[in-house]
């Protein structure tokens, strides 16, 4: 340590009167520089060039290193106080050594040390060293760092002397490495001083200097150390020396760790605890997780996102103001010279321009009105121009939380006016984004390798198939589904309208449109499909969807074929025609759907939820019947006639049966309502799966239904009742959270309260779940991040250990399969069908 050091620190003072670092002080110039203009005395480098150098303090008396207290204790207890040998008889040592080697291989070195302790404890009973017959006393520890033998305190000097006696072979036996480690090193005689660059001081506005926490701590140590030296040299009484020694031990301990359980943490003058070495490394905000495993990046932007169905799936709309700040370095070559020259001429203020140039010597120069002419003059090959973003540049787009690999995909830049990032609504799903104020990040790769990798591996269209289940993660949403559903279900156009529709969604070849006066929606939709595409599937309600030679023959297009996380149709197209075709087709289908809706019109209002009088009657009757049934059950219960279900008490049976009856009533009235509600926009959306479901409609038009907490009716609240409004022990539906009204007519106050109860429960559930699942994910990814497929097809971890002989037992990549399988039947049919 002394050899590695470049300076010995002897004085607690930091600066002299001119504010210049003192030689031999903690800010000694030999330890590195943190002030501009000064030169490091060790390596002659300037600020930010010199990495800094370690120094050392010679401690007047040895102190124990707090982080090794446990190991010291183990060693002291397991070795003889006189001869330093391990307390195991000679002849047994070898046998145990073999056993220990095995255990350390199996369970790691910590288990090994535990075993040594156990073995020694076994022989401890004798209280005598098997080698020299010296009597052994019990070693106790008084936390955090005082050792006692019997009643006598062992000073660090004595501890060190004991540790020195342990032989190298026995160090090995304990599972320590004798090459790197000697036990006595755990008691410090010299303290290493970290370089100043690791603990820079800040100059406040007032010109005052504020030192780093570590410097403060080191200052304390040096001060006490010096006093201890002086006192020892002056032959001060033992008591004073002991006190100072203890103080030194305290300061050194808190220098390493300021959160030792039994010690008061060292504090600033203000009372806030110092952040010393351990706290610097530890936890999420510590060095390892914050600075080493997590990095920050330049060339990135963040802003609010908004939808734009007119841009491509692979594109991202970038605001002009951002495009003019983010840059791409481009080398000046024979071919790019003219074009880059023009950009430089435009400068940083005119789009498309350039912000900087980098000279061949690596110097960076800002382009301004003043420097522009000069730069244009010297611009030649080998120069690099950092130009503005232009259409077609490669960018990585990301939304937190980045839960899966589709949370960061590569998009092509499209510079647009406005201040938000624009993205195609179809890619909302993989990002889990919506437009209620979400923000996203954009990163610009800066070299060819990064750009190539991003474009080939991360482009949106290459990520269409999820590796989680082998189906498409992007698909039409909302209006796009509704539009296509209506189109393929019922709409009929004349030829002009059809042409207009198709042209507006980017179809230019209209030759295959049938030459008829009336063209129905299915025919319009079919124009988009490739001419040799065959598909057989189901729509959402289970009806057949048949596509023969690129013509939609039967069935409608709804969520189950166009939407995300289902769409086998998209999956098949992806497989046959490739990713870019699918992306393009998806864009066209979305645009078509939206175009249809804009021409047809689509709206929803309170009127959509109106019911006919007789329907209302019918629903009322159904609910009434269920309520009566529940009341009858309650009567039976009180009369003691209710039969208990197996494994349940009578009261539980009652609850279950009431719950069942009421839920049945809700479902039934829901069915009635959906059946009899007039063909409305709300219903259309629910039917095709673009938004809402029949239950939502039923809750709005017919009945909200029973509110349940933890799988039961609502029970908590007041003594024997849910609300003070009800009678005690009232088991009737309305007193236990049954909401018989619908959202349109409105809820009674007690019903509203029950609704709020379950609403809050759901909210809490989400709030508690998010951190839990986040931690699970972190643990999983930490455990599995180094698993990879190697060239022989086996899955191995970082040290080459085989985890699986073939990935997933068959070596298939989920994202290349259809929902996890290679469909043999379909292939057979296809091959035979082609003949």
């Amino acid at each position: 340590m002394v050899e590695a050091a470049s300076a010995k620190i002897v004085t607690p003072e930091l600066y002299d009167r001119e504010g210049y670092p003192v030689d031999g002080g903690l800010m000694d110039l030999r330890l590195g520089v943190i002030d501009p203009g000064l030169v490091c005395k060790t390596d002659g480098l300037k600020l930010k060039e010199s990495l800094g150098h370690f120094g050392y303090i010679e401690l007047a008396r040895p102190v124990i290193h707090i982080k090794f207290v446990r190991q010291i204790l183990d060693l002291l207890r397991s070795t003889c106080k006189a001869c330093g040998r391990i307390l195991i008889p000679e002849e047994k040592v070898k046998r145990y050594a073999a056993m220990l080697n095995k255990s350390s291989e199996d369970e790691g070195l910590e288990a090994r040390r535990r075993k040594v302790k156990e073995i020694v404890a076994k022989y401890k009973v004798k209280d005598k060293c098997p080698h020299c017959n010296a009597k052994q006393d019990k070693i106790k520890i008084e936390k955090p760092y005082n050792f006692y033998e019997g009643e006598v305190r062992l000073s660090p000097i004595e501890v060190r002397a004991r540790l020195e006696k342990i032989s190298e072979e026995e160090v090995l036996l304990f599972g320590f490495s004798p090459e790197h480690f000697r036990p006595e090193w755990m008691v410090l005689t010299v303290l290493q001083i970290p370089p100043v660059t690791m603990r820079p001081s800040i100059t406040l506005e007032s010109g005052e200097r504020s030192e780093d926490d570590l410097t403060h701590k080191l200052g304390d140590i040096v001060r006490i150390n010096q006093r201890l030296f002086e006192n020892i040299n002056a032959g001060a009484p033992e008591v004073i020396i002991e006190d100072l020694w203890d103080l030194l031990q305290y300061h050194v301990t808190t220098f390493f760790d300021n959160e030792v359980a039994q010690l008061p943490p060292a504090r600033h003058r203000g009372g806030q605890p110092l952040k010393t070495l351990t706290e610097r490394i530890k936890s999420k905000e510590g060095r390892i997780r914050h600075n080493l495993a997590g990095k920050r990046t330049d060339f990135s932007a963040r802003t609010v996102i908004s939808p734009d169905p007119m841009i491509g799936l692979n594109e991202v709309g970038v605001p002009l103001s951002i495009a003019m700040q983010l840059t791409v370095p481009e080398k000046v070559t024979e071919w790019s010279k003219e074009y880059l020259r023009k950009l430089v001429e435009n400068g940083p203020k005119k789009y498309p321009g350039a912000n900087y140039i980098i000279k061949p010597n690596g110097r960076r120069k800002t382009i301004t009105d003043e420097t522009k002419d000069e730069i244009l003059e010297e611009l030649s090959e080998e120069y690099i121009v950092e130009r503005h973003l232009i259409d077609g540049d490669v960018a990585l787009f990301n939304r937190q939380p980045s839960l899966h690999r589709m949370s960061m995909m590569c998009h092509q830049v499209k510079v647009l006016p406005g201040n938000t990032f624009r993205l195609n609504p179809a890619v909302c799903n993989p990002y889990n984004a919506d437009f209620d104020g979400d923000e996203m990040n954009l990163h610009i790769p800066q070299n060819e390798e990064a750009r190539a990798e991003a474009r080939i591996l991360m482009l949106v269209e290459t990520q269409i198939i999820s590796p989680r289940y082998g189906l498409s993660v992007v698909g039409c949403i909302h209006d796009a589904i509704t539009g296509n559903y209506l189109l393929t279900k019922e709409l009929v156009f004349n030829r002009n309208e059809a042409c207009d529709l198709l042209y507006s969604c980017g179809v230019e070849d209209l030759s295959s449109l049938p030459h008829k006066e009336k063209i129905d929606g299915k025919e319009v939709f079919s124009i988009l499909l490739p001419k040799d595409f065959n598909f057989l599937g189901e729509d959402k309600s289970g009806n057949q969807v048949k596509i023969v030679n690129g013509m939609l023959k039967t069935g409608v297009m709804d969520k189950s074929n166009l939407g995300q996380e289902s769409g086998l149709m998209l999956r098949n197209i992806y497989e046959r025609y490739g990713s870019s075709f699918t992306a393009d087709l998806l864009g066209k289908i979305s645009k078509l759907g939206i175009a249809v809706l804009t021409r047809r019109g689509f709206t929803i209002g309170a009127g959509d939820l109106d019911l006919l009088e007789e329907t209302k009657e019918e629903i009322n009757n159904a609910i009434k019947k269920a309520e009566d049934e529940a009341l009858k059950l309650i009567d039976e219960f009180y009369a003691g006639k209710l039969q208990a279900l197996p494994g349940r008490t009578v009261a539980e049976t009652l609850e279950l049966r009431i719950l069942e009856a009421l839920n049945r009533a809700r479902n039934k009235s829901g069915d009635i309502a959906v059946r009899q509600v007039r063909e409305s926009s709300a219903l259309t959306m629910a039917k095709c799966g673009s938004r809402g479901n029949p239950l939502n409609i039923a809750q709005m038009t017919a009945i909200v239904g029973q509110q349940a907490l933890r799988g039961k009716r609502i029970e908590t609240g007041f003594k024997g009742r849910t609300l003070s409004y009800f009678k005690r022990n009232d088991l009737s539906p309305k007193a236990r959270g049954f909401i018989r009204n619908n959202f349109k007519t409105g809820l009674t106050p007690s019903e509203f309260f029950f609704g709020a109860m379950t609403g809050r429960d759901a909210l809490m559930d989400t709030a508690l779940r998010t951190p839990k699942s986040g931690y699970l994910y972190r643990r999983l990814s930490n455990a599995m991040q180094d698993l990879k497929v190697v060239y022989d097809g086996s899955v191995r971890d970082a040290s080459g250990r085989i985890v699986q002989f073939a990935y997933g037992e068959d070596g298939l990549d989920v994202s290349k399969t259809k929902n996890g399988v290679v469909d043999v039947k379909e292939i057979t049919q296809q091959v035979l069908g082609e003949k």
Partner: protein
Amino acid sequence: MKSEHEKVIDEYAEKLPEFMLREVKESIPATISKSDLSKVMEVIVASYIAARVNPGECVGLVGAQSIGEPGTQMTLNTFHFAGVSEMNVTTGLPRIIEIFDARKDIKTPMMEIFLKAPHNTNIEQLKKFAAKIKETTFGELASEYSLNIFDQVLTVKLNKMLLDDYGLSAKELAKTIKAKVKGFGVESSGEEITLTKSTKAEELKDLYNIKEKIKDFKITGTKGIKQVLPVKRGEEYIILTSGTNLKDILSQPEVDASRTNSNDIVEVYEVLGIEAGRQAIINEVYKVIDAQGLNIDIRHIMMVADIMCANGEVKGVTRYGVVKEKASVLARASFETPIKHLINAALEGEVDHLTSVVENVMVNQPVPLGTGLPGLVTKIK
């Protein structure tokens, strides 16, 4: 299936996994000609090869993401009626966490006991067996306690109906209690058991203590089986239990050991071995995911199960389990308790070979996965 077809298909045994060959054999039409068949086989092989994983693919991380991402969508409701409405089961996220932690004491241990032929259709016999394995304590059989503090006598009245159900008599009970209790004389008469203190001690509390103590005495059944429930599953009856004891149950002659199962993965591993433990993890996780209506490919779950079992024993995905096994100090330190790992590394003189992901991120190097895996070997002249 014609034998010549089989021959053609078997030629591809090297190129396709077994289950796919089987699938082809099942789905191929009988009328197919030989040349057509080989054509079909070629296409199948081609699509199989096209769907294989690329070397360097970071399958572990993809697996972790595939399980972690839908984690937010799982319910937190610990107790949920799943499948069988009569019994509580831990589902959703808490159950997943429980499995991945490889916890020894799970919240709702359960078994599905299948019985051999005559017992599984006869409900009476099944009920008898169920009563036999259910752990019954003395406290459940007793209906009334009376303490005579003055004479130091404890009289317990037994529930006659329950006794008959279990086929027990007061005499037998008295015997078992006698074997376990010291300092008390135990006698039985009719449906009563009397405990009389034999030594005269001053402690009045003794009598009360003994009453509480005998309540927990196991009288019949298998340890750990707290609740039994016969259920019809398809054509036969099975027994669901809450509480598990796989080892003892499997040794019962009536039990069909090949199908009987426990949901405690650590127990399955200890009784049936590591392969069974791995399968138990996969099954249990899949059950939860399926119940939640989530779509996660089985390969990702296999991956987790495999890493948990890679060392020959079930290890949890925690800092004490899988992560501790890692070779790299920095990888371990970046997960949890960094100081501990760094200090141990200092003591042992550990070397980090920077072969995994985090270490390389820390030192600003490309990670050896995916496109970072291949390197170039050149001859330097």
